[in-house]
């Protein structure tokens, strides 16, 4: 069987912060790879360094030691082929929905006219047809986050980084968007690194779940999720789903990460 091509390779990654009271070790000894077109979730409690890891992957923070490669090229600064979605939508209120989606196109001068129809297609894919002339503040939180996802896809990135994108939404909206994200991903098959502190969300979305424990942030376990797609929401009640969730929880409990 052929190995899937590696999209992301992280080896021996270590990140220290200098603070007035000394050096803080945020991430230590992180090793993982993500295959081309693979959806990987990193799950861990607050403060385990998930967001630091994501910022390093996005080229926003330098590493202290180790190496991060995207499609075999080192990430040592911002790259143009990465799409990022943050916990808050981070939209620009003075831009319309369409103009927000086209922001990466404007920044990277990829040609507005060429990408306009692509933007409209993507907006249709996330169910926002007819909203392109609206402003972000006219939309609900869930709709704003869908605009943010559309924006992260517009420049056809090699890798999508999502930092708890649904963390600020209510549970119902969140479930809906999980289903929708899966649908979008099945249509585009981007390589995704999805960070969350919800075990159920990680298992529902990912091909593989990496478990991160804090102080210092380390990836201490890795579990494949062999549940066939498309996964309906009901899959969360299935025994194999429950079994994976249980194993992840047990892992955290044994490490004192979270209370069971």
């Amino acid at each position, binding site marked *: 069987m052929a190995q899937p091509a590696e999209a992301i390779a992280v080896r021996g990654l270590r990140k220290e912060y200098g603070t007035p009271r000394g050096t803080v070790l945020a991430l230590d000894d992180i090793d993982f790879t993500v295959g081309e077109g693979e959806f990987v979730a990193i799950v861990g409690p607050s403060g385990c360094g998930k967001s630091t890891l994501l910022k390093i992957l996005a080229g*926003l923070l330098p590493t202290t030691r180790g190496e991060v490669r995207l499609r075999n090229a080192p990430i040592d600064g911002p790259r143009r082929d990465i799409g*990022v979605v943050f916990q808050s939508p981070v939209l620009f209120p003075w831009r319309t929905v369409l103009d927000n989606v086209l922001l990466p196109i404007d*920044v990277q001068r990829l040609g507005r006219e060429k990408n306009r129809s692509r933007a409209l297609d993507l907006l249709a894919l996330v169910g926002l047809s007819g909203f392109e002339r609206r402003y972000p503040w006219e939309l609900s939180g869930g709709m704003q986050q869908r605009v943010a996802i559309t924006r992260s896809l517009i420049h056809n990135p090699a890798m999508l980084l999502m930092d708890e994108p649904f963390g600020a939404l209510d549970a119902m909206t969140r479930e809906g968007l999980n289903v929708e994200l899966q649908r979008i991903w099945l249509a585009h098959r981007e390589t995704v690194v999805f960070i969350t502190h919800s075990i159920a969300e990680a298992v529902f979305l990912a091909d593989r779940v990496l478990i991160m424990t804090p102080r210092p942030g380390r990836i201490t376990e890795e579990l494949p999720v062999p549940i066939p797609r498309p996964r309906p929401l009901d899959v969360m009640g299935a025994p194999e789903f429950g079994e994976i969730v249980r194993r992840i929880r047990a892992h955290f409990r044994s490490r004192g990460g979270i209370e069971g």
Partner: protein
Amino acid sequence: MRNALLRALLLVASLAAWEGAVRALRVPAFILPRPTEIGAALYRGAVSGIYLQHLWVTGAETLLGFALGSLVAFVVGTGIAASRRTEYFLYPYIVMFQSMPKVALAPLVVVWFGLGLTSKVVSAALIAFFPLLVNTIAGLRSADEDRIDLMRSLDATELQIFRMLRLPSALPFIMAGLEVAMVFSLVGAIVAEFVGAEAGLGMLIQSRNFSMDVAGEFAVLFILALMGLLLNMALVFARRRVLFWDPSQKAESNAASLKGGL
């Protein structure tokens, strides 16, 4: 609707009370003129065209001073916001200059720049400078960290971040600063006219004061109030157009608190 009517009635009633009290108490016109006398003075000046002539002078001084002061403040503010080093070197001068009452510079400005338009424009610009400087710096530094991260992750240049993010984010602050700067410019122009001028509403006030034409003085004050109101309305209108996306209308409260300072 009923409120508007009540407002008008209150205005008429207070003017009538003023008129009645001055007549009943026989207050001399050079202390407090009657509203009818002020009205007559307004009418005479309007017909003769004297107000329009001076209004034009003061208006030009105010607007030019506003433009000059705002432009310099925006450029210096951008420089300071962009680099901590610039801030470090300029900061002592700015603090000293800011603590000084700028109207106290007016006599010096008139000596340096003469009795004509230039000294009034410089004086207006000096006073207009600070509110916009402070707001420009605060505004440019107010850009949301996540939005900056987003721009960086897209490999945006610093110039793009400035143009697409920092400047729009600063606009609520800048518009508030401009509103204050406009009111301050008028103050600067009038003060410089007091010190020495050949024309303008401030000069007109002073000359009428010397000739004890207090009703005429009130008439000019009324025109000045009207002028300030119009200038402010123009900026409020501009702000609503520019900041249509800013639901917080933070600008309004900023402007109000700063204006109270003078």
